[in-house]
């Protein structure tokens, strides 16, 4: 008997007798001896619960988390406060341990959560329909491009460089499969370059892809960009930060066809990058080409209101090679956190949170830009993230400055040079409601001194010289 099994020796004897075999080995007799192992796997033997806990705790202690430092790191995932009710609800057996609601009569809780989640996403984005979630933001973006391909069959995609680098790279990966080409449009003073955008568009363009706000934190003026795409009949796919939609115009109102994004900011913890969820919302006309699970309302035989998975003829288990996507698993538990979070914030709370972020971010932007050797990378409106340029030689110098700050338990942000060679000494700084004015003042102080030391040529503590760029 090993951990979590319950077959005693007496059980085993009785069971083998009922089966009519003499040993457990006999049950594996169909496996050819050439591929059946007698030797044990080369893995350590099992540990007791307390030992496993201690081992995992020791590994956790070797990480510097947002609990251990004052962190201004964002770039796609943000250290927002996750309310305690979310831990409680996500930990409930009834939400944590079932599978996809294939039997709706005993899955009304999960199905209703999906229905409420879809409602919340539609309200936030101003779109007509939402699915029940997909893996994450970047994969949602690539899934939206696949919807465009199914919708109009055109061969090209035009994507702004303001889209998260991981989203753009995921898109390129998936395009190898379905054979579309991607044209990237540069940013100019922080915004998608409208002239280059317009020039890249033609009637071969299946869809255009934008981000609001973009990766540099800038709020894009979407209307002219969308209008240009419309002239060529291209679908408009917008990635959105769902939290920022508390203050920014809803994509649906602006004429976006498909709105996707990373849902981590809605009540999901950082978890070193996942699991969180991606949201996927669209206009009505695209609903039968959407990927993933969708919950719908119906009634039972006695007329009681109920919910089911619906429009399943899109899906892989019915349509197989003709399915609109191969996706099977959604991110139901993370989407639950999303809808609970939005309900916890509430109609006014979401707006107030966004306004607080805007004010604190403006304060931080001003405080950092006032430092010697720091200037704004762009001067566009921002919600909770902004970009500055450090007067340094290169990315390696930025990394040394970051390491100096880290030694004082401040993480000043994300070195933009990793993904944007055109901004080798850029720094992306994110503000959440967990970062107070005092934290921001501390950042300004620590970063100012770290920069001064670096520029004075002193050797940094713990900085590595062995570093390459991270993404293309």
């Amino acid at each position, binding site marked *: 008997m*090993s951990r*979590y*099994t319950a*077959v005693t020796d007496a*059980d085993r004897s009785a*069971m*083998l007798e009922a*089966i009519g075999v003499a040993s457990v080995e006999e049950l*594996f007799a*169909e496996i050819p001896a050439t591929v059946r192992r007698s030797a*044990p*796997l080369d893995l350590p*033997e*099992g540990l007791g619960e307390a030992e496993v806990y201690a*081992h*995992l*705790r020791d590994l956790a202690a*070797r990480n510097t988390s947002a609990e251990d430092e004052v962190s201004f790191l964002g770039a796609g995932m943000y*250290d927002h406060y996750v309310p305690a*009710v979310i831990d409680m609800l996500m930990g409930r057996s*009834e939400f*944590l*341990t*079932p*599978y996809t609601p294939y*039997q709706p009569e*005993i*899955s*009304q809780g999960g199905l*209703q959560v999906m229905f409420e989640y*879809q409602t919340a996403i539609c309200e936030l984005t101003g779109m007509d329909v939402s699915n029940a*979630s997909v*893996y*994450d933001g970047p994969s949602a973006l690539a899934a939206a491009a696949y919807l465009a391909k199914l919708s109009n069959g055109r061969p090209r995609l035009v994507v702004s460089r303001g889209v998260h680098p991981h*989203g753009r790279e*995921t898109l*390129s*990966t998936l395009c190898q*499969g379905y054979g579309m080409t991607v044209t990237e449009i540069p940013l100019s003073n922080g915004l998608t370059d409208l002239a280059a955008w317009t020039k890249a568009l033609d009637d071969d363009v299946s869809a255009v892809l934008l981000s609001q706000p973009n990766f540099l934190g800038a709020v894009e003026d979407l209307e002219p960009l969308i209008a240009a795409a419309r002239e060529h009949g291209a679908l408009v796919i917008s990635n959105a930060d769902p939290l920022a939609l508390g203050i920014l115009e809803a994509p649906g109102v602006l004429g976006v066809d498909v709105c996707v994004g*990373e849902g981590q900011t809605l009540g999901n*913890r*950082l978890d070193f*990058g*996942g699991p969180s969820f991606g949201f996927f919302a669209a206009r009505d006309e695209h609903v039968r080409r959407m990927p993933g699970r969708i919950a*719908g309302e119906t009634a039972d035989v*006695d007329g009681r209101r109920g919910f*089911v998975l619906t429009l399943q003829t899109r899906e*892989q*288990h019915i349509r197989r*090679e003709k*399915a609109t996507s191969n996706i099977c*698993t959604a991110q*139901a538990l993370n989407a639950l956190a999303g809808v609970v979070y939005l*309900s916890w914030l*509430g109609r006014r*709370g979401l707006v*107030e*949170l966004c306004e*607080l972020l805007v004010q604190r971010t403006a304060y931080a932007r001003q405080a950092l830009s006032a430092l010697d050797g720091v200037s704004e990378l762009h001067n566009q409106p921002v919600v909770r993230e902004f970009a500055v340029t450090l007067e340094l030689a290169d990315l390696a110098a930025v990394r040394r400055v970051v390491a100096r700050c880290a030694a004082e338990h401040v993480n000043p942000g994300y070195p933009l040079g990793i993904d944007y060679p055109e901004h080798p000494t850029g720094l992306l700084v994110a503000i959440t409601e967990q970062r107070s004015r005092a934290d921001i003042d501390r950042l300004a102080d620590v970063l100012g001194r770290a920069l001064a030391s670096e520029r004075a040529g002193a050797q940094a503590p713990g900085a590595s*010289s062995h570093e390459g760029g991270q993404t293309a």
Partner: protein
Amino acid sequence: MSRLADSAETAMQRDRAVTIFEKGSPGRRAFVAPALDVPELPLDELIPARLRRREPARLPEVSEPELVRHYVRISRRNFDLDSGFYPLGSCTMKHNPRLHERVAGLAGHARLHPLQDPARAQGALALMWNLERALAEIAGLPHVSLQPSAGSHGELAGVLLTRAYHADRGDQRRTVLTPDTAHGTNPATVTMAGYEVVKVGTNADGGVDIDDLRAKADRDVACLMLTNPNTLGLFDPNIEDIARIVHDVGATVYYDGANLNAVMGVSRPGDMGFDIVHFNLHKSFTQPHGGGGPGSGPIAVSDRIEPYLPRPVIVRRGGEHSNGSGREFDLDYERPKSIGRLRGFQGNYGCCVRAYAYICSLGASGLRDASETAVLNANYLLARLRQLGVCELLPPAYDRICMHEFALTGAPMKSELGIRTLDLAKRLLDHGYHPPTVYFPLLVDEALLIEPTETETKETLDGFAEAIAEILSEAREDPEVARGAPYTTPVRRLDEASAAKHPVLRQAL
């Protein structure tokens, strides 16, 4: 259990579904914003009015107590693995240890930013490295990527890797072979990866039809996708021949790891001849299913596929490289032949933490014991069903020793008792069981796919077998009972046809 008259509505049934959007009152809230502690600037100066939202999103307005009560109450309208037996074939609904939730919730894991400098995320990278090594050992293939987020995502990675492998050799191929027993994700993945599906037939024993495979394996074939044991719960004893036939035409062999729970430590896909394997951490390695995700679908590959793995890959630097940098473990992006990313960041790390804790708990012999017990439990349950006479009406689709699951056909039950597999499944709900997977695999008429897993007791299996026997004998008396089931669930049979015909996909406000 008697059939309930309409007047005998249960308390749960009387409690009609009301969404959070229909609750609350204007002005109520749970959240209180932190005080504004910086000088306030006019909003118009910060974000011009024309870029701002004109109407706030119509989110719920509820107090925290209302919020908690709403979700706790609707949670009770779910059946879950912690409360009852969940023999859902192909899904491996094994016990989810709470230890895993505890360790995944430690701040050092849960509040670690994915873009933290690797020098300050050494614990996470070490954990991922260790998990990769363990999965490589279990698969019998040397290289692992933890990036894919689910089985279907792992499949997509696998087929894109195959595409990259052939392209790198200047080899244009057009098709992917899948057995007609395959999970629906296989053919759907093939299309997304730009290939055409060619189906391979099933032989009389439930395995791959070797002659059909030989006939279809040509130089146009990029890959064969296979589950072994397959979706009928049967191990294909011809696996080495199958791999040889496919390799002989220069194609890759892909292992859908959905059924790995049958063979952990017993037989390794790499040893069987597979080039690429995906794992379902939410199945074999007990990441909780969460009501439909999150999942995690790492892949393991052979040496010849390794250059194309998604990036970044986790590397362990040798002595001189890590000297002074604090980076024993690192993320390597310099992968010129990589297919690129499949998603953001490093994958579903939280799922990796849980899977790693599980592997640490079980160790080498525990993993093997888990698989052996899963197979023992499945065969015992089948034997019990036979003993009780159930298999006269629900015979096994293929009468062989099964692995961790087995497929029954309800065809005789349908013709003799006049109830369908769906009716049996719905009646099981009244007995407090989650039904098996129904109507899959597609080639079995009125299919039931039953996977008990290793974490269930003999008593549970006995009880489930007896419940099925009872439903059949009840149906012999009066088939209407099963046809009208369920009676005791929060709602009864739902009108799925009208839901699809007239979709209502959100709460009207």
